[in-house]
């Protein structure tokens, strides 16, 4: 669906954020894009949506370049920015004047999502809190039914019940024709939501693995003592040690995304090699 090849991008008069980056995203998946602040997550997402133009390389959506921002491409992409902008309309009025631009928009879905996220459809959006504004735009984005849904830090500003509801909604809207990309630096927000993990670090995608393959290769656990276990990475606290081990038993454990992310950005080459290996 999305094919990024040899992409190099940097803002004017600044060093390159990506250099010859390659990435393929498929329909029917929820990708979690993790990276440190400033790693270029938002910029990569903007390149995918045609909102930023690469210096070199290309980004294709279903074989067509996104860079020209043709209408047929834009109709297939919904981009939810980290800092959402809402006009001075109620959600109902906003839908009345914007939904028509998205051929697959479903009004009934929109009102269902609004209700699920506890947003008042008759309240003027820009008079609401940031969280309510964001939820209204999340509902709109989900209801567009675009084949590519890109969400940049969607859980920023959401309270805990809304985050839970958000995860449920995202899981419910995924279809075989849809690809969802969610970027965040709040790693725990993506727990039990994403099916494929992308980690962007130092100008490249260090990890691009389905979660079930991650647990095939690595074991995550909390141990009182890791002596003799040969952990690949560990973080000690007062109660014991969170550790990542190579999965040699074939038993599955729950992925601790935060621990894995910390291990990778700390430069743990062994884990990266394991995850890159076929």
């Amino acid at each position, binding site marked *: 669906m999305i094919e990024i090849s040899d992409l190099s991008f940097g803002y004017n008069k600044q060093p390159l954020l990506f250099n010859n980056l390659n990435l393929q995203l498929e329909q029917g998946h929820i990708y979690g894009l993790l990276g440190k602040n400033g790693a270029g997550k938002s910029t990569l997402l903007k390149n995918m949506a045609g909102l*930023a*133009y690469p210096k070199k390389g290309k980004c294709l959506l279903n074989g067509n370049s996104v860079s020209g921002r043709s209408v047929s491409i834009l109709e297939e992409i919904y981009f939810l920015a980290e800092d*959402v*902008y809402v006009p001075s309309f109620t959600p109902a009025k906003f839908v009345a004047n914007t939904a028509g*631009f998205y051929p697959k928009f479903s009004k009934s879905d929109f009102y269902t999502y609004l209700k699920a996220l506890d947003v008042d459809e008759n309240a003027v959006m820009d008079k609401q809190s940031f969280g309510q504004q964001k939820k209204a735009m999340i509902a709109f984005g989900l209801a567009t039914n675009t084949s590519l849904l890109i969400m940049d830090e969607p859980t920023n500003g959401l309270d805990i019940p809304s985050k839970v509801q958000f995860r449920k909604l995202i899981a419910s809207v995924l279809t075989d024709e849809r690809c969802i990309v969610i970027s965040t630096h709040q790693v725990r927000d993506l727990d039990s939501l994403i099916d494929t993990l992308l980690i962007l670090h130092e100008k490249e995608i260090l990890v691009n693995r389905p979660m079930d393959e991650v647990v095939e290769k690595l074991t995550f656990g909390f141990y009182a003592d890791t002596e003799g276990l040969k952990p690949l990475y560990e973080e000690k606290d007062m109660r014991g040690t969170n550790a990542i081990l190579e999965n040699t038993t074939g038993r599955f454990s729950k992925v601790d995304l935060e621990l894995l992310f910390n291990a990778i950005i700390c430069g743990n080459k062994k884990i990266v090699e394991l995850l890159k290996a076929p």
Partner: protein
Amino acid sequence: MSNFFSPARFSRLFIKHSQEHYARYLMSMVVLVGVMVMGGSFLIYMINTSLDPVFQMLLYAWLLLLGGTIFTSTIFAEYGNSKKVITKLSLPASHFEKYLVAWLYSFVILFIMVTVSFYGVMAFLINVKHFPQQRPELFNLLQRPGALQFPIIFIVLVLYSLLHSIIFYGAIHFKSLHFIKTAFLFFIAIAVMMCGNKLLYDLLFKKDTIAGLPFTNVAYLEKGRVVVINLADNKEFYSLIMYMVLAVMFWIAAYFRLKEKQA
């Protein structure tokens, strides 16, 4: 549907733009009318000036050129706002449709609104106080004063096209302070062109010419008299055509700048 232009999509975009901005546009309109009423009243009552047709014409031209360029400088303001630009660029409408909505509002609609409100205010002001030996008269946009070849409306529109196109380009090119930055560069460019023009004329005529704007006449001093060289026929026509060519070039440049815009 066409990726370049679809009437249905364009109508939808025009309506969306109007709904989102009508409050600001109405306020701008009220301010414009307020400026006209206040300014006109000041002229009539404070400095006792009658608003004769020639004076009205000058006021109208200034109002359109200044008010129009100030308004136009804000027409792409959302593209300079990091929050709004994503919404604008990612909306499924073509660049041409987005461009056309901005162009229509800042050129056609603005021209109509300024003209209608100017005539409305003038009709009121010229009757509010009567000056001896002066009958209240509105200036006619279709008249040709003096030795001018073309009606006023034609000349005003060409001049507005040129200034509009320049500020329209500045509005999409700059992220902020669109009017100030564009005006600053405009005046620098004028100064550079005048100097370049003079150097070129000096070389061509081998005389110390008087600095002048491009596409106008050439003048120099000879035996204490100013000699002006002009085109024999249609001099206004050629100047206006050159201004229109420049305007079209800036409009095209603005379109491509919009296409290149990134979030």
